């Protein structure tokens, strides 16, 4: 899977960091989402999907490669 984040939409709620730590973080400068791993391993997929669905600003998009 490939993750795309929209920093303009992000409100820094931190839900993604709490849900998929290691893939997402909040920037040290402005608290906005930082993508640590744009193409995370398969075992992180479920957490990443949950993080995308939980993002209240809908700032996380997932592009799926063929499974």
């Amino acid at each position, binding site marked *: 899977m490939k993750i795309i984040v929209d920093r303009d939409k992000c*409100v*820094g709620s*931190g*839900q993604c960091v*709490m849900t998929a730590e290691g893939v997402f973080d909040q*920037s040290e400068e*402005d*608290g906005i989402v930082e993508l640590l791993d744009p193409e995370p391993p398969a075992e992180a997929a479920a957490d990443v999907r949950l993080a995308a669905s939980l993002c*209240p600003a809908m700032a996380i998009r997932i592009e799926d490669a063929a499974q």
Partner: protein
Amino acid sequence: MAVDDRFPRRVGDLPDTRSGGTRSEIVTGPVADWATDFSHVEPEWAADPYPIQDDLRRRCPIAHTERFGGAWLPTRYEDVAAIAYDTERFTSRTVIVGNFRPPRDLEPVGVSPPISSDPPFHHEARRLLLPAFTKSAVRRLEPGTRAFCHELVDGFKGRDVVDAAQDYAQHIPTRVIADMLGFPPEDGPRFREFVENVLEGINLPTDERIERVDRLFDYLLQQIHDHIDHPRDDLTTYLINAELGGRRLDASEVSGMMALLLIAGVDTTWSAIGASLWHLARTPADRKRLVAEPGLLPTAMEEFLRAYAPVTMARLVKQDMHWRGVDMKADDWVLLSFPAANRDPAQFERADEVVIDRRVNRHAAFGLGVHRCVGSHLARMELRVALEVWLERIPEFTLADPSAVTWAAGQVRGPRTLPVRIG
């Protein structure tokens, strides 16, 4: 340089935020049935709300009350989450349930942005505050916080019994936020009064309640003027100079944001520290394990936040609607009980137990959705440092008198009297 004349000296000269608001009848006294007459400010709730919430979750699960002019209390995680995410049908224009609803034309800003704001205004207002609360910004505050915690424990010298809430927990977030805002540290005791006035005085006669809230804003305006005359590197000066959508903030926005930071920054964390110490004082096995394994503290702390989440937020219903089996009316309150959500067995295994090594713990103590706590890194740092210092300096402690423990009533719940034996 042009004179900055945005800020009046007195709250009475701020733009009016009350005309057009509605008052409801003040109803107090024992609750007849928690499903139809709940009140989160009655002593029974303050003392132990969890059995009440568990019972409601099983048989309701969305309780109602005619008090406060009509309010709802969802108790399942999924319902609390759904409302927290739904900014279309639930407004944040005020987030403290009471007997006064401010006028609708305050939307989308509200009286204490961004917590009282709805999208799209909320977005920029919140982003303004984020840089002050990043992990690195918080890290810079840690050494001072730790030194202050040690100072508080030094003050216990010669005493066998201390009040862990009043002599310890309370002072930590108060000092930290006063430093961040650039307020005199000796004003700490006044902050406690402000917090009580805003959060606990909700059933006072409305005029008295308004007068008490005004005292907070008078204080904030005084601080703003002091900062205009003597600018310094702190959050108050930052807000005075900040821009939002290409303009500087107005007096209501600056003072409203300061009010939010002061109130939300003080008793929330004070409650979390106090509740954690209360748990450890009465649970020797957990206390001993944390003393022996300090590395477990960050994990244990999340469990304390889940099990004893201090904060309940609120929304107002925008339009009459049928929602998940109940008929909500426009301007009904809805309590967002993150404490109840955190103990929903559908969301957490062993939801009613405190499991200090719980591995997966996606609790809602900091809220959910766009309004999720902006200060969570700060709160976590304060809670961790407060517990680290306490356990290092006072590894043995017990409740001195369990019946003397008192808890705050209302939307922020934590111990307010907590005598512990330390010697």
